[in-house]
Structure formats: C-alpha cells, structure tokens
C-alpha cells in the first residue's frame, strides 16, 4: 500500500506516524515545500522572541526520527492530482503514485487587496522564512505596524512587542480578536495592550501603503498616516487547494471531508487547516485551523487510510492565546447558541472575564480571560455534553464554579 501525504505540518506528520504504526508494511511519503524539517507554526512567536532557536520549532526531536520510521520526507510541491490514475504531480518534475492520498497542505497567508502590499518591508508572519524576515526588520525601536489583530496577529503581537519595537496594531473589525472574543473580552485585551504601550486601532482600514524616506507610509481611511520600517500582515490565511483545481475533489472553504475525513473522491483524505470537516458544536462542515484539530484529523484520517473505520466526531473550535501576558481562551459556541443562556463574570479592572454558554443544561461554549488553571475542563464539559442539572443555575449565578461543577458532575457519573 502506498500512502502519500501532501503537507509536512502537524496533520501530515501525525498522519505519517500513525500510518507507520497502523499499516507497518506500507510506504509513507510526505511532500513538504518548505526547506526546514517539519516544524510548528505555533512555535514561531517564541522563535521571534528568541526564547527558542530554529530547532525548537521542529515537530520532532532527533535528526533521524523520520528515517527510523521509514517515512520519506520529500521537499517538493504538489502541482496537481490525477485522481483517476492516483498520481500526484510535483513541481520538481517528478510524480508520486498513491493508493491513498492525504491532503494536509495547510494554508497560506493572504494579503488584502491594497495598493503597496507588495512593497519591500511588508511581510507575512506565517512561515519560518517569514519569521526570519520579520525578525530582521523588527529591531528594537523600529516602527512596526501589524495589520490584523486576529488569532495569528495577536500571537505575533506579543513577540513583536517583546522585541522592543514601537508597535501599532490595525484591525479592520470593531474589536481585537473578532472571531475569538466578544466585545467585552476584545475590549479588555485592547486596553491591556494599550496599557503595555501598544497602540491599537480597531475599526480601522489601511487605504494604501507607499514607500517613503527609505521606509513605508500607511494611509488610513481615517485620514491619518503612519510611518513604519516594517509592516507585518496577519490579515488572514487561505487553504492551499490550487493544485486540486482540476479534480473532482469538492472544495468550499477547504476540502470537504466526511466523518471519516474522506473527501468527495474515494481514497483521497484531507486533514488539518485545509480540511473542512465536521464541527462538533453545529454538525456542519467547518475549517478549524487549530493545532488540536490538525492532530486529531491527522490521526483519524491515517487510521482510515490504513483500512480502519474510525469515525471523527467533530472538532471543537477552541483557541488559547497569550497577549503580552494576558491569557485568553475560547471554546465552541462562545457567541451563544439559539435558545441558550449566558453566564458572565467580568472584572474589567483586573482583566478577568469568564463567559459560559449553555443550551438546556449543557455547556456549549465559553470564553475566558486570565484563567490558566484547569481551563481544559471546559472542553471536557462541552465535548462530553455532560448534563449539569442543579449546577446550571449555580453557574448562571457564578460561572467561576465551573471546576466545582465539573468535578461534581463527573464524579457523580463515575
């Protein structure tokens, strides 16, 4: 059996390792188009701050890790797939035949269609190569504009601020982290950043970027103009699906997969950021570009590629973020469910916030700011759909009792 995996990120690598265990006699080939050994984007901010070196970003320790597993990691790029002939065409001119194919090609950073975004000094911060360029430009004292205060933007924000740059953040949305935080949380994070000396402009748009005095000038829709030596663009990512354009593989926001992580074409699977798979909370298909989903996708897709029949029960949208020392997290339907109820506890002065969302007597979503202990039980409660019973009214009154509710409910079950 020949397994080919397109993409050497966490989903692809975990799939490769799982295949090696589940289907020991198969050949496993991973195609990755970046020059480095498989690495984690999650680690890039820590590389930027200098707290780790290149090696610290690597997904696996030990230079011979993949060789020992007999997993062939090939530096190349898929340019097309012939699902009839079961063949992947490669940019290097060769091709790979497969019996089962996993698309784990991830996503790429996209820049908004604004004039001047192609100028020198405008960088993404998505790949290791991007990170090195950002690091080179983000010298202490340099004026840096970060475009986009979403999850990725905020991760980079911390790293940039730590490098001692003079930082301005521009977010189009009305609040920071528009897809991970509500107004209350977004506002708290904004105030927190400002208190740490970062300028944050929300509801702001860049009209154009131009070269000026050896640097860059950003013209905002508000009329203000900003000078910068470096512009970091973190406005969004898009799945890497171009090479599938001529295939029957169905694509919406990403590669549509069923509960076995199989695409619309037999023997073609997808996992990770590129996959649009079942969402635990809604049952709909969603792209959840997060590490835990990549890891679960990779594992379950591989089990099925190896001939198993393991159902994926849906990924829970969740994120955890450290913004200049303020830890925030979000889970599931944090914005609320239809007919549901909300519990909130906020202490704006101390930057603490907890919002719980219920449907009937079950927890379906949550937001937390400043909470670092036992935060995982929120996932536990949501994903096991535990009935909270008498705890629900108590949690509506005081959401902080969530750990007590968890222990009491799960112990009652046990």
């Amino acid at each position: 059996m020949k397994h080919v995996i397109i993409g050497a990120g966490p989903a692809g690598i975990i799939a490769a390792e799982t295949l090696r265990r589940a289907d020991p006699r198969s050949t496993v080939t991973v195609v990755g188009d970046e020059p480095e050994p498989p690495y984690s984007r999650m680690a890039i901010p820590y590389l930027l701050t200098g707290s780790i070196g290149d090696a610290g970003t690597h997904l696996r320790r030990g230079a011979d890790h993949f060789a020992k597993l007999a997993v062939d990691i090939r530096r190349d790029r898929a340019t097309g797939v012939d699902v009839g002939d079961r063949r992947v065409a490669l940019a290097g001119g060769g091709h790979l035949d497969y019996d089962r194919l996993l698309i784990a090609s991830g996503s790429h950073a996209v820049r908004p269609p604004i004039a001047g975004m192609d100028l020198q000094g405008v960088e993404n911060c998505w790949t290791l190569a991007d990170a090195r360029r950002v690091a080179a430009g983000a010298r202490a004292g340099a004026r840096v504009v970060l475009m986009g205060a979403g999850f990725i933007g905020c991760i980079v924000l911390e790293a940039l601020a730590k490098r001692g740059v003079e930082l301005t953040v521009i977010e189009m949305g009305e609040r920071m982290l528009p897809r991970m935080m509500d107004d209350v949380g977004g506002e708290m994070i904004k105030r927190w950043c400002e208190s740490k000396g970062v300028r944050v402009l929300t509801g702001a748009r860049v009209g154009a970027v131009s070269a000026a005095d050896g640097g860059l000038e950003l013209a905002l829709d508000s009329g203000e103009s900003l000078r910068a030596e470096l512009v970091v663009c973190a406005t969004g990512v898009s799945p890497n699906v171009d090479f599938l354009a001529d295939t029957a593989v169905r694509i919406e926001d990403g590669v549509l997969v069923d509960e076995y992580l199989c695409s619309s074409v037999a023997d073609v699977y997808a996992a990770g950021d590129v996959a649009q798979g079942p969402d635990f909370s809604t049952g709909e298909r969603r792209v959840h570009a997060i590490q835990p989903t990549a890891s679960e996708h990779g594992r379950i897709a591989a089990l099925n590629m190896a001939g198993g029949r393991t159902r994926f029960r849906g990924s829970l949208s969740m994120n955890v973020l450290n913004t200049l020392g303020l830890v925030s997290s979000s889970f599931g339907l944090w914005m609320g469910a239809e007919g549901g109820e909300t519990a909130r506890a906020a202490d704006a002065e101390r930057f603490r916030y907890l919002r719980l969302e219920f449907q009937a007597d079950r927890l379906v979503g949550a937001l937390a700011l400043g909470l670092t202990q036992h935060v995982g039980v929120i996932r536990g409660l949501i994903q096991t759909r535990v009935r909270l019973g008498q705890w629900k009214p108590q949690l509506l009154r005081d959401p902080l009792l969530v750990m007590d509710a968890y222990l009491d409910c799960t112990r009652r079950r046990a």
Partner: protein
Amino acid sequence: MSWQKKILRVNLSEGSSSIEPLNMEWAKAYLGERGLASKYLMESMDPKADAMSPENVLIFATGPLTGTMASTSGRYAVVTKGPLTNAIACSNSGGKFGAELKFAGYDLLILEGRAPDPVYLHIVNDHVEILPARELWGCTVWQTEEWIKARHQNPLLKIASIGVAGERGVRFACVVNDLHRAAGRSGVGAVMGAKNLKAVAVHGSVGVTVKDPKRFMKAVAETKDLLESSRGRKGLTKYGTNAMMDTMQEFGGLPTRNFHEVQFEGADRVNARAMMTSKPNGHVNLLTNKACFGCTIACGRIAHIDERHFTIVNRKEYWHASGGLEYETAFAFGPLVGVDDIDALTFAGFLMNEHGMDPISFGGTLAAAMELYEMGVIGKDDTDGIALEFGNAEALTVMAEKTGKYEGFGQILGLGSRLMCEKYGHPEISMSVKGQEFAGYDSRAMQGMGLGYATSNRGACHLKHDVFAEDMEDQSGRGKAVPCKESQDRVAMIDSTGLCLFTTAAWGVEEFRKQIDAACEGDWTEERLIACGERTWNLERQFNLAAGLTAADDTLPKRLLEVPAPSGVAKGKVCQLDIMLPEYYEARGWTKDGVPSEQTRKRLGL
C-alpha cells in the same frame, strides 16, 4: 528561610500600604505568630489606647513553620488590644487563610488606623489593594467569602472576615476564616469592625522555603509518625475535641447552668457519641472530619442539622453541612445554658461562624442573662419576649441570631457578660476573668486551670497553659504554680511557631525544636525556645500593666472562690487561688504586685 522576612503594613486611615523587612532580631527573640506579633504590637501602639479606637493596631501573624510540611502548619494568630478585656488579645486560628498569607510572602500583616469607609484588603503576593466594601457591609461571613471570590474571579482566595457582629462592635466578635475557622476570642473581630475593615482576602504563590530541607523533611516525618501513633491524636481524629465532654462530666468539672453545677444531666445527649449516633428518624449529626492546613490530626467536625428540626425546618439555606460542634461550643451551648438539643447546639454553632462570634463568650453571656432572668432582674420585656430560662433551646438559637445581627436583646448580649451584668447591677453573675468568659473547665475541680484562668493575659482561657494532667491527678492547689508557669511559657512558644497546640498530644518541646532548628536560621535549643515563650508571656504582661491592669485583675469570680462545688471529685471544694497566686508570682520572678522584677526583665531582655 522559613520566615518570609517581610511584613505588610497597611494604614487604613491613609489608605496606604508598605512592605517592610521583618525585624530579624525580634523574630529570633519571639519566633513568630503570638510572640512576634505581641512584640510588634507593643512597639506600634500605646497600650492605653481604646481598643475600638483607630490607635489600636490589629496584627495577623504567621509563624516560622506556618505553610511548611510540618503537621498542623496552618496556624496564624490575630493579636491586638481586645475590647472584651481591655487587655492584649491573641486569638489563634487554623483553616487555610494563615498559610495563604505566608505563601503570599508575609510573616505579619499589620493594620493601623481606621478606614474612612468600609473596605476590604485584597492581597495577591506583592499586589495589595484596599478596596471599597460598601456592598459588603451588613453581609454575613459566608456571603462575604462568596462575594469576594466571585468579584475577583478567584476561587483560590482565602478570606478572613467579620460579620455584622464585628461591624457593630459585639465585644466577643471574632474573625472567621475559611467559613468556619475562627480567631475566636477577646473580640478581635470587633477591632476589625472598628477599623472599618470587612475582610482580608489573600492568594499567594511565593511559597515557603526552609533552611535545611533534607533535615527538615526528616524531622517532619519523625514527628508526624509520633503523632500518628499517639492515642491522643487518634481520639481527636475520631471523636474531635468533644470527647472532653465525657471526661469533664465524669470528673465533675463541667460548668453547668452558669457554674451553679459541675455536672450536666444531659451531657450524653450533646457529647461526641451523640454526634455520631443516629436519631430515631435516621439523622446523624456528624458527617465527616476535616483538617486545617497541613494537619494530620483532622479534629475538625463537619456536621449538618436535621432538616426537620424546628430551627431550620423552614430555612432551607441551612440545609447544608458546615463546621460542627467542638468541645467548647458544645459545652457553652449545652451544659452552660442547660440545653441538651444537639441540633439546636449545632445550629447556634453555625450562626456563630456565619455571623462571626465567639461561642464561649456568647454562651457565657447567655448563661449570665439566663441567671438574671431566673432571678427576675430582667424579664420578657427586656428579652424581646423570649423566656431566657436555662434549658430553653429556642432561647439559645434565637439569641444567637439576634446577637449576630445586632438586633433587640442581642445588642445587650453583645456587651459580653461583664458589662451586661454590671449594667443590671449584678457584676458577680459574670463568670469571667478580665471580662472574658470561661471555657468548659470548672476551676474548683481543676485548680491549676483556675490559676491559669486567673493569670492568662487575655482573660479566662484554657489554651494558654497546660496543667491538665496535674489537675486530674490532684484536686488541690498545692504544687500547681510552677507547672502552670512552665506550661504557660511552653504554650506561648508553641503558639509562636505556626503549629497547633493539639500536637502536644504526642510532642514535647524536642519535637518542636528539631523542626524549628531545621527550618530556621540560628541554632535552636529547648532552652532558647522556652525563653521565647517566657519572654512573650512577660511582654504580654507588660502590655497589660501598661494598659492599666493590675494584680487585682488576676482573680476569679466569687462563685469559684467561695461557693463549693456541689458534686464530682471536688465536691465541697473551692478554687484555692489564694494559695497558688503568690507561689505563681514568685515562680515568675514577679513582685508580689504581679510586676516582672527588674532581674526578670533583664534576664529575658525586656
């Protein structure tokens, strides 16, 4: 090492706080907790100051072993001038608050002045805030804990607070921490209230280190083993302190109906066995036992009241478990007021914790009021229509609540027995020393206890000396002075370590010494430790003398000195304080007027 070497001083009048280095010279002379706080108190205020004035200083103090792995390391002391006694007050508590204060990095928290408006203190390590407590004023202790934790979204906060009793100056209001642990005696809660301080909330993550970890862990293991295998420890774990009820009943040392009797016919309905026994309807009072921080004894009782009991049948908010009866509460709400209804006792106990009051002084004051009622000095017009008769369980629980909420006759009870009885022209009815009510040991049967009560620096107290064995053996006043003095010094030392007195069920001075010596800098001998205790005792005495107390205050009510015990081993006997006291002054190296001689002061470096 072991000391955090840091104190937090808060000036409530100015709304300011500062972190100061601990005076290590004092730490080495007074250890911590009771001793060290007494030293700081003496240096921070004029002992003549009114206890309820801003000039009084309130100190929360941990000991060098607080927050370590030594067994019972959860103790802290609240030291101030007590409004019940106008003497130095030192109330000791367990629970988890004290250790948390230590983990936040402090040996002592010193509170000065008076906040212009109600406030509470929020401490997370070096981060100290004085926050408005307007919304909390008027809340119970239990509401306060919940409110503060929710307000700060921090369930890890440990909280010491006062109820309405403390806010309104009930003379025996206490400071309650962790819902049902209290720095109970002498009215330290009223001082907190007078400072407009509702609560202290603390979370610490600094931790505690010791001088020689390896040696310390060995000493801790050995002393724990010793405690584990001791009979005294086993009894405390299984029965709690209320095991004492049977001993005192049998002995005839159980103060009953305001000390008119020394044995109580209903004792077996409110003793430890009764707490564990199923009632005909199946209800069992005792649910489980729980420990204070670091404690391997776990004498604390967790109990619940029968939901059908008249006290709570219509009050669902009390249909839950909470801190149950320990001996002093059982004695003060049982024999002392003649009540034998264990659910009523338990409910009154809940109310003490919820509203922040000392059960011993409340029981003593209620017993005095009952006597005044039965004498006809007061009537139903005074008592809000309640028949204050000995044995009336409803009188107990209704008055407990009225006092806690500072309503009606509760305001009179809130004066404490001495002021209340003086008000009604019968000071002799108050069974107290220096204004503080007795614990559950009659000093006609227990002579050494009588001497201890009379000389205790905080007024009548059973926990400032330990001549229990001597008293059980011999019911005369002979030879009690020296053991009383020596045990006072020993206990003062133990009260200054951060550990619990109950460890003496198995430990002698050596067990404390080896843990202190491994944890704290300097070489610690038994002599040096005892000297810390003796120094503390004499310092407390000096505070009281400076406050205006004299040898005349080292006495007992006439009932114990002149009225013979009606039954028990001491039948026909009175307390022979007249024999013991002169011997005691001599043993202490004090003048016959009860003043530490120059030589004594020199010897102790005072």
